[in-house]
């Protein structure tokens, strides 16, 4: 019986393997990162331009892809006013900053990430419980401005707290939620019946 271990069990062999595997994996990740960021830039097919908030958005099952995906209709300006790309970008940006400032992610999930104390916001714009397409904007604003009074808890008793959201911030949050609902999330969530679908 020899005193030194076989090559495959030796320290030097595994040291080299560790270095090469780590370096190789990281290089692949960097390449994929460049590709992913180019494919998810705002204005592409996966992440729509901010001015998509001027259009009607829905989320339907695609029988060719065999999954749900966003679909876009004609003009449906948010709050009745069509915005330029820059104006829409500014509004959605204010909405995203407000969502972060109010720490929404530690109750809700966004794109499925966050906490699980309140519903997922990925397709909140399309949720059937806003009543109808005509009522939706007003009900969303009312809810954000006074979540305690306008709470819809489904008997759970779980209400959104008072977060001091201003009127301008509430408009911006709605714009952000509408824009986020247009992101192609590879079919997540599945089986989601939208407000538009309810009215078919």
């Amino acid at each position, binding site marked *: 019986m020899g005193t030194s271990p076989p090559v495959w*069990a*030796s*320290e030097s062999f*595994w*040291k080299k*393997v*560790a270095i090469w*595997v*780590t370096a190789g*994996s*990281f290089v*692949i990740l960097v390449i*994929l990162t460049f590709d*992913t*960021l180019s494919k*998810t*830039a*705002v204005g592409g097919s*996966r*992440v729509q331009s901010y001015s998509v908030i001027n259009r009607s958005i829905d989320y339907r099952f695609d029988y060719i892809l065999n999954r749900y995906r966003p679909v876009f209709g004609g003009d449906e300006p948010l709050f009745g006013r069509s915005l330029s790309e820059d104006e829409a970008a500014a509004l959605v*940006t*204010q*909405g*995203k*900053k*407000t*969502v*972060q*400032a*109010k*720490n*929404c992610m*530690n*109750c809700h999930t966004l*794109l*499925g*990430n966050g*906490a*699980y*104390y*309140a*519903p*997922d916001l990925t*397709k909140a714009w399309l949720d059937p419980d806003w009543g109808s397409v005509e009522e939706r904007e007003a009900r969303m604003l009312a809810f954000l401005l006074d979540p305690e009074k306008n709470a819809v808890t*489904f008997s*759970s008793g*779980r*209400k959104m707290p008072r977060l001091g959201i*201003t009127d301008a911030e509430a408009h*911006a949050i709605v714009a952000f939620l509408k824009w986020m609902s247009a*992101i192609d*999330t*590879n*079919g*997540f*969530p*599945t*089986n*989601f*019946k939208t407000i538009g679908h309810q009215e078919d």
Partner: protein
Amino acid sequence: MRTGIIDGANLNGGQQLAVKYFSVALVLFLVQMLFGLLAAIQFVRPDFLYNVLDFNVNRMVHIDAMVVWMLYGFVGAVYWLLEEESGTRVVGLAVGNLAFWVLTVAVAIVVVVYLWVQTGPGNDLTRWFVNEGREYLEAPRWADFGIVAVLGVFFYNVAATFSRGRWSGIAGVLTLDLVALAGLYCAGMFYLTNITADQYWWWWVIHLWVEATWEVLVGCIMAWGLMHVLGVRRRIVETWLYIEVALMFGSGILGLGHHYFWIGTPDYWFSIGGFFSALEPIPLVAMVVHSVYDAGVRKLRNGNHPALAWIIAHTFGNFLGAGVWGFMHTLPQINLYTHGTQWTASHGHLAFFGAYATINIAFFYIAMQTWRGNIWLGSGLAGEGWKWKGALALINLGVIGMTVALLIAGYEQSFIERAMEGSTWRGYFAGQMHPWFQQAMAWRLVFGVVTLAGALLLVWDLLTIGVGETRRAPQFAAEAG
């Protein structure tokens, strides 16, 4: 050298700094549990502290205290072993001490602002000075720079001390891992409106910390711990360390893809994320084999039973929590339904506990042993060591109980909210109001209390174990690298 009482003269310079980190870590561990308990109560009684200390605040303090106490534990563990491993004194002990106080004051300010200010207007000032609003990375931007600066000091101390003393396999892996640790944090330090790109980089920090660099850091700490507690030979632990690094980074770096299924990123991540994350449990199996084999060949003979017990708890907890519980819902075919449900919370609880809390607690016992003059903490302790055994049992029982309760809630949520109801708000509450979900949340609270009781017993034990003990533990001097 005095035995049986806490005496700083029993510690080298690095270890004196390490026990400061361990002390704050232990306090933050209790803070983590306290705020977790408040959040758990709110799941059962939603009116509890409503509009005073809401769920989002409690949950944020719960998870941030966890991240920070674990980092304190890791930094402490590295300072603990640094002088012994390098064979020389810590190069920048004074600046290391300064960094400790800067970090601790910064953490205290951040927590006070979280609790008193809570949220702010939707502008840049809030993100810079109150709360960044991104799960796990809520620390305001000013604190981010502080964290990077402190990690920089820590890295300097580690690299410069090994350079002046001697390098070893553990030293090399540790130093390179710290470069990645500090560098990756920067990937989360900028604002993006594009939430897909935002979450893409956010996961670089969260995943590549927790499922890659933290695991390797813990691999280094455990390798040294096994030499110290059991007297395992250096060549054995370092070979295992390289195997673990190869498997951990080989699976974990591209395993990042399992977070890129549903955030707007291309669908090639299904295959990459699914395949590599399926491999992620393998290094964790290797760690179990490694530690259990080493403990077995030495017939568990050692002078620090609590530390060894927590090291064994670490290997099994890491494998089950990070490996098995992670794999159970990692493939996209199931993750479509489980993503963003209590299933993830179940995995999170067992994984963070099994992989990281346990190894930190093992080091707390190693520290207490040396701090009291390298006393015997093996068999024949006062009261047969009922306190450390009770704490071990209660904490493990509590965490496993919470994990199983959350898993049941996650099953129920996946079926009812996701598969049946299609994730609408009404579907979400249909899942939340189901008796099975409600019962699971009540049981989670019960087991949360059990965990806290175990942690209080742990603190009591750490403060009293070995008091008046005069027997000395055997010294396993780590062979030079």
